[in-house]
């Protein structure tokens, strides 16, 4: 057995309140495409940041070709042949391609020579790129090419790719895989991070699975079914909780033919979305991040307005109404981003309670605020949802993620909504807090509220939702009852196999 290119031994990294990596060990062989699998928050990104020198491990060692390897900064890692393509592109919009590439190199040649080399390498690997174009004008796929070529110009021994396909079209994924296969043939090792199982089955030689910061198993992806890998990722068989035929009321929320362009430059437009949610029903919406989740929440909350008839609440068109009017009617939302979207970070919990509660809780009188009532509303949320904080006068920023999330969800739940839309209600929240948030959502539904739960946590959706639909590139699949739904079927709805078909063409 030859020495592996990179050997990780017992890497541990803890942040306040969470152990991101706990005794992670595995080897990456020479010329191997090694997949690092895991759910959001499993510790994949932290692990690669340690390899790239951005984060220092608390304990554990790394060996590069048998030699101790402890990069103090990315420069040192790059000097040792480690290159990384970032999940969120580390590019400078106002600079041109050549300048961006020069910034990622230790000893870049003169600009004119560099431009020539960029042209050569980009032609060799089938990634055409004009060195003098401004990066801000490039498409997501072209931007990624800039990152990849920046890495290739340094002849890396190990290329780290963090979720490279999440922003690519299927055609671009195909090109990317050709490039990666070429690199593997030349002896470059690749550490490929993803949670797209079919991609990994197509591309990777070996896979390591992380769950809650721990290495929970390894497998050879080509010989393992997507279902088995998914179960290793989530840690148990995907449970389908019993949903005894609870009676649903009439349709509370009716979305039909909803198409909305994304407000942000790199967002996903919603395309012809149809769905109905009945009173007492929980509709779970799954899908990989960036497939229109934020836009869907925005259009349901009223932050993005649309044609009046596209969204109906109890038969009444509300597409043109803004968030406050919708709140008054009983349509409440809790967005994904806790600090900045769901809560104002530097304002107290009392003030945050007022921000969404003023309409329904009557915390306002002719423009004057009723602080006493607001404070007792905030205290009610804190006690009902077991929010750990010294008191409602504390700033939202001072709470841990889980506690703030309980507050944000609790604030909406206690306003007795008729329709509640939540996005990633338990993202980054510990298991106990997550369970109580899910329980609150279920209790609300039992009282007759129509709930839409957007999440990337399939386990969560299987646990709480009555029917399931998936967002894929802004399109929503037809909702199906959760009971009896298999992982393979869910994968198909999420478009998991879609990418694989294209990759084979």
């Amino acid at each position, binding site marked *: 057995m030859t020495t592996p290119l990179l050997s990780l031994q017992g890497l541990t990294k803890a942040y306040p309140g969470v152990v991101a990596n706990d005794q992670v060990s595995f080897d990456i062989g020479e010329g191997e495409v090694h997949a690092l699998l895991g759910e959001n928050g499993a510790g994949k990104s932290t692990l690669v940041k340690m390899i790239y020198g951005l984060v220092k491990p608390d304990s554990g060692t790394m060996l590069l070709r048998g030699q101790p390897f402890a990069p103090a900064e*990315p420069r040192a890692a790059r000097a040792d042949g480690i290159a990384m393509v970032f999940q969120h592109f580390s590019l400078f919009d106002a600079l041109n391609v050549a*300048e961006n590439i*020069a*910034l990622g190199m230790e000893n*870049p040649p003169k600009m004119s020579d560099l431009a020539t080399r960029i042209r050569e390498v980009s032609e060799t690997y089938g990634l055409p790129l004009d060195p003098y174009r401004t990066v801000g004008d490039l498409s997501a796929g072209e931007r990624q090419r800039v990152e990849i070529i920046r890495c290739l110009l340094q002849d890396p021994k190990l290329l780290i790719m963090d979720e490279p396909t999440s922003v690519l079209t299927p055609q671009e994924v195909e090109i990317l895989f050709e490039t990666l296969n070429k690199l593997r043939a030349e002896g470059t090792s690749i550490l490929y991070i993803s949670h797209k199982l079919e991609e990994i089955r197509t591309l990777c030689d070996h896979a390591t699975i992380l769950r809650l910061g721990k290495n929970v198993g390894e497998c050879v992806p080509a010989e393992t079914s997507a279902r088995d890998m998914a179960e290793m990722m989530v840690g148990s068989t995907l449970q389908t909780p019993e949903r005894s035929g609870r009676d649903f009321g009439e349709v509370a929320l009716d979305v039909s033919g909803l198409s909305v362009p994304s407000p942000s430059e790199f967002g996903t437009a919603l395309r012809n979305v149809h769905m109905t949610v009945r009173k007492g029903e929980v509709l779970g919406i799954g899908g990989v991040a960036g497939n229109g989740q934020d836009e869907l929440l925005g259009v349901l909350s009223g932050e993005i307005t649309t044609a009046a008839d596209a969204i109906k609440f109890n038969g009444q068109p509300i597409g043109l109404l803004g968030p406050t009017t919708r709140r008054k009617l009983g349509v409440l939302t809790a967005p994904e981003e806790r600090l900045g979207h769901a809560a104002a970070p530097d304002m107290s919990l009392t003030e945050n309670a007022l921000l969404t509660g003023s309409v329904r809780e009557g915390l306002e009188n002719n423009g004057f605020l009723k602080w006493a009532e607001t404070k007792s509303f905030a205290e009610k949320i804190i006690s009902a949802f077991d929010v750990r904080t010294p008191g409602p006068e504390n700033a939202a920023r001072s709470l841990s993620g889980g506690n703030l999330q309980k507050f944000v969800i609790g604030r909406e739940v206690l306003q007795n909504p008729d329709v509640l839309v939540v996005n990633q209600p338990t993202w980054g929240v510990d298991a106990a807090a997550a369970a109580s948030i899910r329980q609150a959502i279920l209790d609300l539904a039992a009282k007759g509220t129509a709930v839409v739960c957007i999440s990337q946590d399939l386990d969560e959706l299987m646990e709480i939702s009555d029917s399931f639909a998936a967002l894929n590139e802004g399109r929503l699949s037809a909702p199906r009852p959760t009971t009896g739904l298999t992982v393979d079927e869910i994968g198909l709805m999420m478009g998991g196999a879609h990418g694989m078909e294209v990759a084979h063409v």
Partner: protein
Amino acid sequence: MDLGEINPVLLVASLMVAATPLLLAAIGELVVEKAGVLNLGVEGMMIVGAISGFAISVETGSPWLGFIAAAIGGAVLSLLFVVLTQVALANQVASGLALTLFGLGFSALMGQSYVGVKPPSMGDIHIPVISDIPVIGPILFQHDPILYVGIALTAAVWATLKYTRVGLILRAVGENHDAAHALGYKVIKIRVMAILFGGACAGLGGAYISLIRVPQWTEGMTAGVGWIALALVVFASWKPWRALLGAYLFGGITVLQLNLQAAGVAIPVEYLAMSPYIITILVLVILSADKSSAPASLGRTFHASH
């Protein structure tokens, strides 16, 4: 009124002198803003530079030492801005305003015993033959050395930003500090260096007013040039040569309106006095139609988090 008394050669020569303090301060601030930091304390750093330079050259008798002291004085004051914004992560706008107010007050205190004192003169350079050419000689080749330093600095900053790796890294930090950090560049360190450079340039600009342009010390003698420098950087779209153009335009109109006042033109003095500000801003607003060139991270606080 006699417009014939205005000598065009002297007018052009003196507009360059009038423009130099503005140019020096603007070039320094341009570098600071290119690194993504908005330092509104230019006026404060200028006036501290003005009194530092004035005091040292009076005490030592050497204008050169005075200018060096001015640069150090401006840089030391900018160090306060560094501590506030880069270490304590305070708001840049508020910190910059505080710096200006502090600088104005502190310089008045430092300068109490220097009111009415005459500083040593630096003298103009005189190159035989070239300086004696009619018209061109007096305009281009009969100035004090610091004026040429200002032009050289403009050229150096332009070339550094455009052609060198240091300039590229500086622009990268100002453009996207998170990406620069991810690539392993020391964002805070680079910004601190830029802020110190900006402070030194503003100090030089201030000392140019107190040692050469006026030359004497009075409280608040920078009279808003620091604020014009800030506006100039924005309207020059962060381009050094355009900043030089803007500074000369401002200097030109300042000198012209003084000449017009002296010639007794029948326009109220107040209108003439405000004309340089209005015309400079109007022209630069029209020039800066391309809004895209502002550094994307300008004024945003960087905090490394993983």
